[in-house]
């Protein structure tokens, strides 16, 4: 981890501070999602294509959809995106009712062939898809399971693909006894980051439900498609639409963005199979009474919360510290209203899409190289100095103490150094995920001069 070699003060920063990049493209981005490893940034666009940028170079490495070749693609704006946990698959939901699963390992164009590969799977709904999440990561046999929320449906839809590649559809709460009260339509569904078979749904009447769709991982998605789904928790924290649910990576904190202009931050406590929610804070713009467009937690336990306010006069992102609920930072720099946002914990950047231009703004840490931080007597000089070493400058003096030191160093040299095993956590304490590297057709890239 070269992060270790950087300025320790930059590594210790807990949130991005200033606008570091703006990604402009003729395709207008409507939503963004960072890959789990933070190497890529996927942008869903108003034109229907999904563009995957390499975060370091800020160049697109892949444009999914609308190419020459087989397979359906979005013809209306992309509503939401979700990466699978291994970073290999990307899920895109469109306002045209299409839900597409892209296998990035296969999406690169076959060299010498004229065809762009289409999506790995597609599901056509009769109405726009609000969003979707991966319930369990893709299995090795190509099976996976997705929960999706579709316009005007009372239940989230569970899609599972078996090893043969057939996609099964079923309502999430099919085998639960019908709930007494009308909960409205499901607008959001989010997978729990720790209990990965738990789906949290939010409805248009303010109900929030935790479902466990267990046993699917072990027995394969096809066999378990009609496996039991159990309700872990159900409550009604608000009476208006739940627009977003964000869960901190540790799984202990949850934020609900609802259309009553407030973000509710709740603590999640698990007791066996019972989940309890307790309200910690409520964030509101007390002056302008604005709604919030999107909300996202920071890494680990979600020590910070970032949200984009609605309205053409608001061009900033607000960042709160969740323990005390106080506003700690306003992320400025964009000159338009910001819509979707995502926070990359590994790269410590926040990306947000602009409403009007469709540009993607990225806030990060701008680190000034401070070499003197490495050694206290280090001195930066204006010009090179021709240094002449003294005759005895590097002679070995053999005081007893120094001899012992060299002996110790020699002993240490004999020890085998492990250069292969990767650390389990990076320098910021995030779990190191083996990032998926999207295969590139280098010849085509060179030809295009990228």
């Amino acid at each position, binding site marked *: 981890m070269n992060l270790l070699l950087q300025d320790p003060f930059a590594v210790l920063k807990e949130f991005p501070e200033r606008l570091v990049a703006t990604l402009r493209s003729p395709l207008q981005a409507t939503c963004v999602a960072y890959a789990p490893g933070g190497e890529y940034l996927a942008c869903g666009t108003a034109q229907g294509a999904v563009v995957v940028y390499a975060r370091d170079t800020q160049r697109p490495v892949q444009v999914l959809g609308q190419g*020459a070749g087989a397979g359906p693609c979005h*013809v209306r704006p992309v509503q939401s995106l979700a990466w699978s946990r291994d970073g290999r698959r990307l899920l895109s939901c469109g306002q045209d009712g299409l839900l597409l699963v892209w296998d990035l390992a296969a999406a690169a164009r076959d060299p010498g062939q004229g065809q762009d590969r289409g999506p790995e799977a597609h599901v056509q709904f009769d109405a726009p898809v609000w969003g979707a999440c991966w319930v369990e990561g893709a299995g090795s046999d190509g099976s996976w399971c997705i929960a999706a929320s579709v316009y005007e449906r009372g239940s989230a839809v569970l899609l599972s693909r078996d090893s043969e590649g057939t996609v099964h559809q079923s309502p999430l709460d099919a085998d639960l006894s019908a709930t007494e009260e009308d909960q409205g339509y499901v607008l959001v569904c989010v997978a729990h980051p720790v209990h990965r078979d738990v789906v949290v749904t939010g409805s248009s009447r303010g109900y929030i439900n935790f479902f466990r769709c267990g046993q699917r991982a072990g027995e394969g998605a096809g066999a378990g498609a009609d496996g039991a789904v159990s309700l872990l928790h159900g409550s009604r924290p608000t009476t208006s639409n739940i627009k977003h649910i964000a869960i901190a990576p540790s799984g202990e904190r949850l934020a609900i963005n609802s259309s009553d202009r407030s973000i509710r931050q709740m603590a999640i406590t698990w007791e066996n199979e019972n989940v309890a929610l307790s309200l910690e804070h409520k964030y509101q713009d007390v002056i302008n009474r604005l709604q919030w467009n999107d909300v996202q937690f920071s890494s680990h336990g979600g020590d910070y919360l970032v949200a984009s306010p609605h309205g053409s006069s608001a061009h900033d992102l607000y960042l709160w510290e969740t323990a005390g609920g106080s506003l700690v930072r306003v992320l400025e720099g964009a000159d338009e209203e910001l819509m979707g946002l995502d926070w990359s914990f590994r790269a410590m950047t926040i990306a947000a899409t602009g409403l009007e231009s469709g540009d993607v703004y990225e806030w990060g840490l701008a680190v000034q190289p401070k070499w003197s931080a490495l050694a206290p007597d280090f001195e930066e000089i204006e010009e090179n100095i021709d240094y002449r070493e003294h005759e005895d400058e590097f002679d070995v003096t053999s005081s007893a103490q120094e001899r012992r030191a060299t002996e110790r160093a020699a002993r240490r040299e004999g020890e085998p150094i492990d250069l292969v095993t990767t650390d389990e956590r990076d320098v910021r304490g995030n779990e190191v995920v083996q990032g998926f590297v999207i295969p590139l057709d280098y010849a085509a890239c060179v030809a295009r001069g990228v």
Partner: protein
Amino acid sequence: MTSTLPSWCPKYNPLKHDPVTNQEVYCICKKPDEGELMVGCDGCDDWFHFSCLKIPEQYRRLVASFYCPYCQAGITGTPRASDADPVNGRKTLWKHKCRLEHCFMPCQENSKYCSEEHGVEYMRAVVQGTHHDEDSSKLLRGMIHVSEGDSTKFTELGQGDIHARKVDPQLSPEAYKNIVTTDAGLVRLQNDLKNCENTTIPRAKEQLDTLDAYIAWLADVNAKLNEETGPSAEGEQDVDTTNEEKKPRKRKRKASNKRSKVKKSICGYPQLDMALPCTAEEFLQEYNAAQENADSTQTELRGICIKQKCNKHNSWVAIRSDQRQQEVEAAEAYRERLELLVRIRQGQLDQLYLEKLNSEHRDSVAAAN
């Protein structure tokens, strides 16, 4: 700096104006312009005398791009972003000169001659044997070989475009088969192309047609629905209907009269496929019956959404047509790309084939000698 100044070239002098006369000065000689033939450098935009650079004046029309000795040595000239290699990319390039010895005009495109007349002149010289050198006799032999002694073929030589000319597989059917016909890449591309033309595109077009037919049918249904609720309101007295039927109809009409300008139409989203369920008239009958029986709570008839104002399937017609249209376009773009790839591959293989023929011919000539 890879290249250096030639020995005859003086050191770079940034002088632009004569310090005494204040005239503009050019070239390596730093003299004012006196009407002598000059060439402009593409690197530094200075002008240079042909004579100073020791370029014969007859080459005046053959300069394709010119860089002065200073630019070539990397002393002057701003590197441009488009240059792959800022210094080594700067090289004076020449156009091909006409094949006729005494002509210094540049060649025409796809030709070895500046003009047709010079081509004829050269060939005449070759055929008449007045032009004696190694090249021309070889050329003559080659032409006679290719035309196989046939005088019409001989006269037709060189008529067509060299690049578009087809190679003749008959010259060596064995080699042609080995190199061109059985090439795995070409075969695969041709199969893909065939597949695309015969399956993918027709299927996409068929789907588009099905959708268009369905939309037309739906428009028909909606038009008839409007007719029925519109003029039939006046014609109601003529139609002898029972009282049970009349009541719900009247209620419906009242509602539509209130919003008299609002056109009545059903959503028409098909849940299953685009197949036409029945004729528009039959569907309307069933629709009216359903409206009367279920009292407007039914939202689906024969798998078709019959809601009048349907948010759920809002603008589904536009979305679906865009999707189908996109599929057709993508398939056609695919075909175009495949065609291009096939053409490129074919060209490469033809080239290989010709090279092979050439080497065979050379070998046989060597063996004969």
